[in-house]
């Protein structure tokens, strides 16, 4: 990959700006969008994500190779799946009833598998969902740092998983690849690595032994 992939981050709440800022620092061209007018994001972008471009969602997505979904899961139904056709989509969302309420559509099975079924024209990778927004930036470390934590990257398409593993690596985490979205259930709320910031060896053992990831 000579030219870095272009990122669109959808969502400017707790999580989106943090991912966008890390990606800008790692050298990716980044656009950020919400459901509304980019004018409303101008100040937030200027002060908190310098280097990123506020856009309308459709424009941000059209110009991107990778689209990061960082919106509350209950808003996911408002996204038109056709908007994301042909894109590599990173699902950073979580089904977390304790903080967001019960969603019938997500009450059975892995949330990213349900997201992928709805986004039939996209390739979905589950990543960047399991580290708290308040820690994602503070805990990032360059490769080789003894305190560098691991981050899970799960998906059914090995090339897409490799690409997002590269993104995780460049923003400051040792990627741990999981061979399917099904296996990515180990990254969900209630799982062994959710909310925990763990080094590579401990992280790998935790997700490999987790019953959620066993087919």
């Amino acid at each position, binding site marked *: 990959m000579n030219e870095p992939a272009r990122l669109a981050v959808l969502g*400017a*709440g*707790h999580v989106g*700006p943090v991912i966008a800022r890390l990606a800008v620092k790692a050298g990716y061209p980044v656009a950020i969008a*919400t459901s509304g007018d980019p004018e*409303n994001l101008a*100040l*937030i972008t200027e*002060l*908190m994500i310098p280097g990123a471009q506020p856009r309308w969602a459709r424009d941000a997505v059209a110009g991107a190779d990778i689209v990061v979904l960082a919106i*509350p899961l*209950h808003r996911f139904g408002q996204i038109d799946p056709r908007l994301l056709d042909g894109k590599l989509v990173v699902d950073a969302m979580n089904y*977390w009833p*304790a*903080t*967001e*309420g019960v*969603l019938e559509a997500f009450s059975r099975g892995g949330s990213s598998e349900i997201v992928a079924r709805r986004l039939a024209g996209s390739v979905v990778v589950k990543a960047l969902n399991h580290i*708290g*927004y*308040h*820690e994602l*930036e*503070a805990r990032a470390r360059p490769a080789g740092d003894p305190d560098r934590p691991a981050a899970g990257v799960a998906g059914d398409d090995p090339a897409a998983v490799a690409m997002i593993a590269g993104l995780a690596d460049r923003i400051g985490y040792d990627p741990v690849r999981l061979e399917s979205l099904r296996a990515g259930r180990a990254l969900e*709320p*209630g799982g062994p690595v*959710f*909310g*925990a*910031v763990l080094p590579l060896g401990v992280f790998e053992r935790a997700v490999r032994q987790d019953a959620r990831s066993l087919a």
Partner: protein
Amino acid sequence: MTYTFGLDTFGDRNGDADGKPLSHAQTIRNVVEEGVLAEQAGLDFFGIGEHHTEYFPMPAGDVVLAAIAARTERIHLGSAVTVLSSDDPVRVYQRYATLNAISSGRAEVILGRGSSVESFPLFGYDLADYEELFEEKATLFAELVRGGPVTWAGKTRAPLLHQDVVPHTESGPFPVWIGVGGNPQSVIRAARLGFSLALAIIGGPPARFAAYSELFQRALEKFGRPPLPVLVHSPGHVAPTDEQAKAEFWPRWRDIITLIAPERGFAIPTEESFDAETGPDGALYVGSPETVAQKIAANLRVLGASRFDLKYGMPGLTHEQLITNIELYGGRVIPRVRELLG
């Protein structure tokens, strides 16, 4: 800059010397005593955060604040926070306007979600509607606080038509803040509504919130509003020495964070993570008066904030430990912070 200092509690259920929990009723009576002591210790603000749990039995903080108001003269009294999304803005206004009357103009309100979500199922609200509920209700609350007849229509409560909402205040709007925990769009909303900004910093490096403070002042400019104050709310515990403060606070903090971690996505605390949070770059103000004063002064500067509210207590700490905390905070920490800030 004029600095002010407050104390916040969630009605953390007290323990006795043997670690046995006191009753909810005794804990609430102790909070009244702590509020009265806060004024005697020279504090500017005493806040009570709404919670509905066995270990934070504090759903009606305004009632407790009224008891404190009757026994104090000077200290400001407010919520920290009021969970507005699962309440009725008219009722919230009425309760705090009543507190404002009882206290002769000392009421304040901090609106937010706080750390609690348990009020949603309790009162029949869906957490998925949180954003819409808060946006609508905060907008109505801004109208109510301004005074005069209110005309309003929305989806989350009955409409109001030229409605006179009583009691009227004697000297205009009381202070209203919006509590923000990390969502920049909430900062923009506070500026748009003309509310002050309360930064709830409960984990990680406080300095990362400096951008929120700047965002707030820039957004106020953009909306054509004058500058408004920023406050910092963070947990902590003051004791005569660093060792004692950490020894008292650590097991209580570990137990409560471990309990709520699954629903909040927190990591389970370790002695290592506790050392990081109580160190100079962490969010906990636990230590001797000097340690805590240095940290408060440094962060008020970095964050461009003019008020610091220490969330004191943790479930299981004793009333006596909290009294020592309050006395040291008022008598030693605050004078030292003022000295450090010049």
